[in-house]
């Protein structure tokens, strides 16, 4: 194998590959969409999913075909990869956009002050009217209680892992915290069901739901707090220890205040996550149409539970669906606001904790 025969394989001006212009990808995309629409009309397809799929296939195939002709097989493969990645991205955006759009469009119908301040007490599920006051109250109490229990446990566990834990125990805790993040919410619900309701015979209540939510919340709080504590530079701890400050005071007065912004963010994200949990609430809180302000006694309502009940008890009635969407809108708005505020705090605090 000589050099000469190697070089022979190259075109005369090897640097100047035939390249398609920059707008090529856009042109193919536009062509694919138009063709996809055209075919759908011609064949009388009504579903937007279908023409989008046709367009996606045409886009990928078109990019490959034309590029392989003009630029060669390597560039063509590169273009196929690029177009596949774009298609993947669009396929993820479409459901999100549809979900957001539908929730707002259909939720806004009955979403008003009345809806937020009234319960379903005297309204049949198939009739218009009523509201979600009792559900908001229930969610607030259940989530609040769960937060009250899981934050101290979660933060202390994280402190243990970062500041004290070495050895086997710490490894086991770390591993099981990770595994706990993956426990299906319905299993957490079943556990509390068997312990609290079936064995201790305590009856359905908001608090029973809170305990299940706690199981779901603890690992999230531990994880995020751990990350934040690890970001605190060791020099800070050493400086404090070197002054003769006991370790527990160092942690309370130096380590925690430094990372409090990040920890708050993590807790808020955890709250956002459990606020939408339905399965454990379904098993443990049972749901109610009336206002029950006492989370420790008798069934309560909750926002996600309300959506589920309106959906299942609708009897196909528009009024119940409208309420379900409006409640979904409320829930999503609450979660998104929590998310935004939490991220805002994270961004605002980030430079200080960073170095």
């Amino acid at each position, binding site marked *: 194998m000589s050099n000469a025969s190697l070089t022979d394989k190259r075109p005369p001006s090897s640097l100047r590959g035939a390249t398609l212009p920059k707008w090529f990808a856009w042109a193919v995309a536009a062509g694919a969409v138009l063709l996809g629409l055209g075919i759908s009309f011609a064949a009388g*397809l*009504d*579903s937007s*999913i279908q023409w989008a*799929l046709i367009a996606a296939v045409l886009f990928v195939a078109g990019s490959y075909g034309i590029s392989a002709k003009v630029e060669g097989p390597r560039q063509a*493969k590169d273009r196929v990869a*690029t177009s*596949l*990645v*774009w298609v*993947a*991205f669009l*396929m*993820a955006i479409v459901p999100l956009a*549809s*979900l957001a759009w*539908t*929730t707002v469009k259909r939720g806004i119908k009955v979403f008003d002050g009345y809806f937020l301040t009234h319960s379903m007490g005297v309204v049949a599920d198939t009739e218009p009217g009523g509201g979600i006051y009792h559900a908001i109250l229930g969610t607030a109490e259940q989530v609040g209680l769960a937060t009250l229990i899981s934050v101290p*446990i979660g933060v*202390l*566990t994280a*402190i*243990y*892992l970062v500041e*004290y834990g*070495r050895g086997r125990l*710490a*490894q086991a*805790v*770390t*591993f*099981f915290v*990770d*595994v*706990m993040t*993956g*426990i299906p919410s*319905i*299993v957490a619900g079943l*556990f509390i*069901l*068997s*312990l609290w309701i*079936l*064995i201790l015979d305590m009856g359905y209540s908001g608090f029973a739901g809170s305990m299940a939510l706690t*199981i779901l919340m*603890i*690992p999230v709080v*531990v*994880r995020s707090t751990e990350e934040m504590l690890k970001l605190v530079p060791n020099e800070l*701890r050493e400086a404090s220890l070197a002054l003769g400050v006991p370790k*527990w005071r160092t*942690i309370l007065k130096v380590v925690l205040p430094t990372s409090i912004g990040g920890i708050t963010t993590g807790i808020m994200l955890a709250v956002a996550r459990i606020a*939408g*949990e339905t399965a454990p609430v*379904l098993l443990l809180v049972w749901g109610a149409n009336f206002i029950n302000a006492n989370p420790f006694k008798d069934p309560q309502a909750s926002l*996600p539970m309300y959506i589920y009940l309106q959906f299942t008890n609708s009897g196909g009635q528009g009024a119940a669906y409208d309420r379900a969407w409006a409640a*979904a809108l409320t829930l*999503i708005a609450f*979660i998104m606001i929590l998310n935004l505020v939490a991220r805002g705090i994270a961004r605002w605090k980030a430079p200080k904790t960073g170095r």
Partner: protein
Amino acid sequence: MDTTTENPAAPPALQPAETDKGAARGASRPGDRVFIGLSRGSGIFVLVLMAAIAAFLTYRAVLALSKNEANFFTTMEWNPSGVPPQFGIAVLAFGTIVSSVIAMAIAVPIAVGIALFITHYAPRKLGGTIAYVIDLLAAVPSIVYGLWGALVLVPHLNGLYGWLDDYFGWTGLFAWDGGPARSLFTVGILLAIMILPIITNVSREVFRQVPRMHEEAALALGATRWEVIRMSVLPFGRSGIISASMLGLGRALGETMAVAMVLSPTFTIQASLLDAGGGTFAQNIASKFNEATEMGRDALIASGLVLFVITLLVNGAARLIIARRKEYSGANA
């Protein structure tokens, strides 16, 4: 870098010789003792909690299983309150696995694609925005996905189902009787959307960790962008993608409300994925719970125990892969 094992060498500044026991012994001040006790107690509480979950579920499950007059694993019937009580998880196991497999088949390639898009294709700002949007996708509660799936997705799938029936109906898998699209296949699609964020986020993190020098090595040889990804990014990220997928699988297996709202359940195993019917562990618990007797609840707990064990295995395996990979990449970095 957001997970797993406490590296023993990580914060060496904190009295390096201090072991777990030593910390307790060495701390003579009452304040330290109390604080260590509290924090270690919380850690132990987490372990006890996990043990308690397993123990109580098993206890109630055994109560139910001892009265069960049918084979728990093979029976295709759910009649725990009957005389004699007969119930089995064959249908649920089938439905859970099938819907999760469909979800993975759809979600993994798309999620890896999006992760690559964010890290290697999109301009930086756009990449950040998309990562944020994907996070939002993760924040949407499953009940809302369920509502959307039942009222928006299901009616939209009729066209696609017709297609699948026309072109692939001969396989039997994709034969469709024309009924509402409340089938395991639809459940799979919905689950795919729901597990997309976690797979995307973990893969993205892994792709971001690919050492720049490996990519530049490929670039300097005259590799196109795709060839760079194939030569250096994907081999480096393979175990990360696997564990990300398993985390997603864990979610898909245990998802309850969205499945309960979309699926129209029957206690049968059918050849066609597109015909309404079937069930999953979690969905069955949610749907049957309200009308269940005490025996019925224990039977549901028994099925929940199976789900618990499966998700435990899947998640544990995923975490172990991540932990192993981290040691490996840490040694090289």
